C-alpha cells in the first residue's frame, strides 16, 4: 500500500457534524423500568386500556427473553435500569399548532441539522413530522393531506383520534413478542409517526419524519405504523441524527407497514445517528425492527436505506409477501467507519403465488468498521412461481475493516427461482490516482468512487434525498484510501 497511512487516518477521522446538545428543559422520567413506568407512560399519554394491556403483555414477555447474540456484533452489556424511558421537551401541555408556536431553539436545532423545516417543506413539497425526543413538536402540511383524506400525525395523536386503526393494525406485522428489542419497544414506546392512506388515494406529497435524540441517557423508542389501504400509494422518508455523547444510547424502534390490495409503499431511511468517536467511544445502539406486510394481492413494499451512523446497527427491514403477485424490494447502503459495526440486511418471506423480491445491498467498510449483510429469502410451499434476485456487494477501505455476508435461502417450492450474486472489492490506488491525475481532489475522488458503487441504491431514493444521501456519504468518508 503505497499511499501514506497518515492520509487515511486523517481523512477517515472526519468529525461528526451534528454533535451538539439543545439546551431545553425536559420532562424526564427517572431511570429504571418496571410496570409502574409503563403505566406512567400510558397515563401521561392518556391511552385507552387496550394499549396499556398490550404494553404490559409485551413487557412481561420481554422479561422472559434472553438478549439476542446471534448477530456478528460486539455489544457491551446494556443496563436497562439505567435508561430513562420518557423524555419530553417541557413547554406547554398542548402540542403546538403551527411552526410559530414551536420553541425557536428547536427550530435552530433543525437548522443546524440542515433541515430548515419551513423552507424545506415549502421548496420540496415535503410534509415533515419532526419528532424531538419522544414528542412530536411540529407537523406541517396537515391540511393539504387532510383534504386528500390522508392521516399523517404523531403516534400519540393517532391513539387519541384513530384508536380503531391502532387497535386493528398495531402489532399485526411485528407482534409484541417478536424479538427482544421489539418487545421492549412495544412495552415502552413513547411516540412515532402514524400514516393512513385511504382507498385509491395517491398521497399528494412525500411524507418525511426527522427523528432526533437529544436528552442524555434517554432511550428512544419510536413506533411507526403506516397503512396503505386498497389501491393507494405513499412514499415515506425518515432521517435520523443524534448529538455527540460519550455514553452509548439505545434506540430500539419498530416500524410496521401494511399494504392492502394494489397498494404501494415506499419507505426510505437516511440514518445518521452519532456513530461514536474515532476510538469507538459513545454512539447510538440502533436496534430496529422494520417489517412490511404485502397483505393484499398486487401490493408492493420497497425499503431503501442509507445507514451511515450509529455505533451499532442491527436492523433487517423485511417484507412478508402474503398477497399473490406482491413485490418486495430492499435497497441498502451501509457504511461503517472507525469502530462502527453493522449487521443489517433483510428478510423476504414469499407466501403468495408469483411473488417477487429484489435485494440490492452495498456495504462499505473503512477504519476498523465491521459490516455484515444478513439476509433470508424464504419461499413457502404455496409460493408458486416466486422469484428472488439478490445482489450483495462489499467495498473495503484500508486493511483493518471487515465485510461479511450471511445469506440464508430456504426454498420449499420447486417452481421458485432464486438468484444470489456477491462481490467484494477495494477502492484501488489506481482508481484514486486516475481521478486525481484529472485534477480531482482525493476527497472528491473517493466520494465519486463510493457514490458510483452505491448508484444502484441511490437511484431508488426520492430525488431530493438522493442528493442528501450522497453528501452524507461524502462527509462520512472523505478520502478514505483503499
Amino acid at each position, binding site marked *: 500500500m*503505497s499511499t501514506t497511512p497518515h492520509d487515511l487516518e486523517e481523512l477517515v477521522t472526519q468529525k461528526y457534524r451534528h454533535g451538539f446538545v439543545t439546551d431545553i428543559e425536559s420532562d424526564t422520567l427517572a431511570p429504571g423500568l418496571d410496570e409502574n413506568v409503563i403505566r406512567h407512560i400510558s397515563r401521561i399519554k392518556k391511552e385507552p386500556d387496550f394499549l396499556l394491556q398490550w404494553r404490559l403483555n409485551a413487557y412481561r414477555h420481554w422479561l422472559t427473553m434472553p438478549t439476542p447474540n446471534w448477530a456478528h456484533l460486539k455489544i457491551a452489556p446494556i443496563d436497562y435500569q439505567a435508561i430513562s424511558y420518557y423524555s419530553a421537551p417541557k413547554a406547554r401541555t398542548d402540542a403546538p399548532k403551527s411552526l410559530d408556536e414551536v420553541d425557536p431553539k428547536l427550530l435552530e436545532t433543525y437548522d443546524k441539522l440542515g433541515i430548515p423545516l419551513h423552507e424545506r417543506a415549502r421548496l420540496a413539497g415535503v410534509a415533515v413530522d419532526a419528532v424531538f425526543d419522544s414528542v412530536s413538536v411540529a407537523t406541517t402540511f396537515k391540511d393539504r393531506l387532510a383534504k386528500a383524506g390522508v392521516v399523517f400525525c404523531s403516534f400519540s395523536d393517532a391513539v387519541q383520534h384513530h384508536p380503531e386503526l391502532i387497535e386493528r393494525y398495531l402489532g399485526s406485522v411485528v407482534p409484541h413478542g417478536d424479538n427482544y428489542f421489539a418487545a421492549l419497544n412495544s412495552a415502552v414506546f413513547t411516540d412515532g409517526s402514524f400514516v393512513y392512506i385511504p382507498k385509491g388515494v395517491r398521497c399528494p406529497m412525500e411524507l418525511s419524519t426527522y427523528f432526533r435524540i437529544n436528552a442524555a441517557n434517554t432511550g428512544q423508542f419510536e413506533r411507526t405504523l403506516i397503512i396503505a389501504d386498497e389501491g393507494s400509494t405513499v412514499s415515506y422518508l425518515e432521517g435520523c441524527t443524534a448529538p455527540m455523547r460519550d455514553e452509548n444510547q439505545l434506540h430500539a424502534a419498530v416500524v410496521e407497514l401494511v399494504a392492502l390490495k394494489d397498494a404501494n409503499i415506499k419507505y426510505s431511511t437516511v440514518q445518521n445517528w452519532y456513530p461514536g468517536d474515532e476510538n469507538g467511544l459513545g454512539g447510538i445502539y440502533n436496534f430496529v425492527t422494520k417489517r412490511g406486510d404485502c397483505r393484499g394481492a398486487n401490493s408492493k413494499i420497497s425499503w431503501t436505506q442509507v445507514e451511515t451512523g450509529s455505533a451499532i446497527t442491527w436492523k433487517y427491514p423485511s417484507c412478508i409477501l402474503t398477497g399473490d403477485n406482491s413485490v418486495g424490494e430492499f435497497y441498502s447502503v451501509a457504511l461503517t467507519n472507525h469502530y462502527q459495526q453493522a449487521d443489517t440486511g433483510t428478510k423476504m418471506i414469499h407466501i403468495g403465488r408469483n411473488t417477487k423480491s429484489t435485494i440490492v445491498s452495498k456495504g462499505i467498510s473503512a477504519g476498523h468498521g465491521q459490516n455484515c449483510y444478513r439476509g433470508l429469502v424464504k419461499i413457502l410451499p404455496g409460493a408458486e412461481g416466486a422469484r428472488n434476485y439478490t445482489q450483495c456487494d462489499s467495498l473495503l477501505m484500508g486493511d483493518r475493516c471487515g465485510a461479511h455476508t450471511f445469506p440464508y435461502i430456504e426454498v420449499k417450492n420447486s417452481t421458485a427461482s432464486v438468484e444470489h450474486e456477491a462481490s467484494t472489492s477495494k477502492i484501488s490506488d489506481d482508481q484514486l490516482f486516475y481521478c486525481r491525475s*484529472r485534477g480531482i*481532489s482525493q476527497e472528491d475522488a473517493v466520494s465519486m468512487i463510493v457514490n458510483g458503487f452505491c448508484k444502484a441504491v441511490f437511484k431508488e431514493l426520492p430525488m431530493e434525498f438522493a442528493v442528501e444521501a450522497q453528501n452524507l456519504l461524502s462527509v462520512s468518508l472523505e478520502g478514505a484510501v483503499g
Partner: protein
Amino acid sequence: MLSIKDLHVNVGDKEILKGISLEIHAGEVHAIMGPNGSGKSTLSQVLAGRDGYEVVSGSITYKDQDILALSPEERAREGVFLALQYPVEIPGVNNVYLLKAGLNAIRKHRGLSELDAFEFLTLIKEKMKLMQMDESFLNRGVNEGFSGGEKKRNEILQMAILEPSLALLDETDSGLDIDALKIVANGVNSLRSPERAILMVTHYQRLLDYITPDYVHVLAGGKIIKSGDKSLALELEKRGYDWLTHPQSQKGTTTGAIGA
C-alpha cells in the same frame, strides 16, 4: 517547460531511475524508447505524481516550479496530463461526470468559470467526433466494459478536453490495432501546438510512424543512454536495443529483439 535534472528514483529498495536529465520546451514532441523494465513508465508516473515512488535526488522543474512538491491533482490543475497505459475502470461513475469534475477543478484553479452541464456536453460532443467515438459513450461508466482501443481513445479524448500544457503518453499505442492506432495518433497530432509539449513513452517504433517526434531518447537501465532525432527511432527499429545496451557484444542487426 520541463526540466529534469539528475533524477534518481527508488521503488522500495530498488533504484529504478539512475540519474535522468531531460529538457523539454513548449511545442516539442519527445519520445522515450527503451526495452522492458528500463524505467520508462516509472518516469511518466513520477512526473504525474503517483505515490509509491521515492525521489532520492535530483529535481523536476515544470513552468519554473518544483513539481515534486505538488500533489497529482495540483499538477493536473497546472497543466500536466498523463494518458495511462492501463486506464482503470470505475464502475457506476459516469464518464462525463468524471471529466466534467476534472475540467471544472482545473478551470476553477485557473480562475475560469465552471462549465455547466449543457456547455460541457457541447464541448465533449465536439471532441468525441475527433476521436470517432459513439454517443453511447456518454452514458457509460468510466472505462467500464471498454475494449482496449476504446480505453486508449478515451484517454486522448480526455487530453483533448483538459488541454494540458504537458501531455505524458504512457504506451498509448499498446494494445491498439492499426485502425485504432491511426485514430489515436490523429487525435494526438491535432493537439500538437506551439504552447504544448508532449512526452511519449513507447516500446515500439510503430507509434512514431504516425506521430513524428522532434527528439528520441533511449532509456535503458534507468539512464538515458542515447538521444537523437527521429532517425534514431528508425535505427532502433532496424538494430534493436542491444547495440546500445551491450555495445561490446553486438554484431549485425537484430530487429527481432524489439518485438521480443
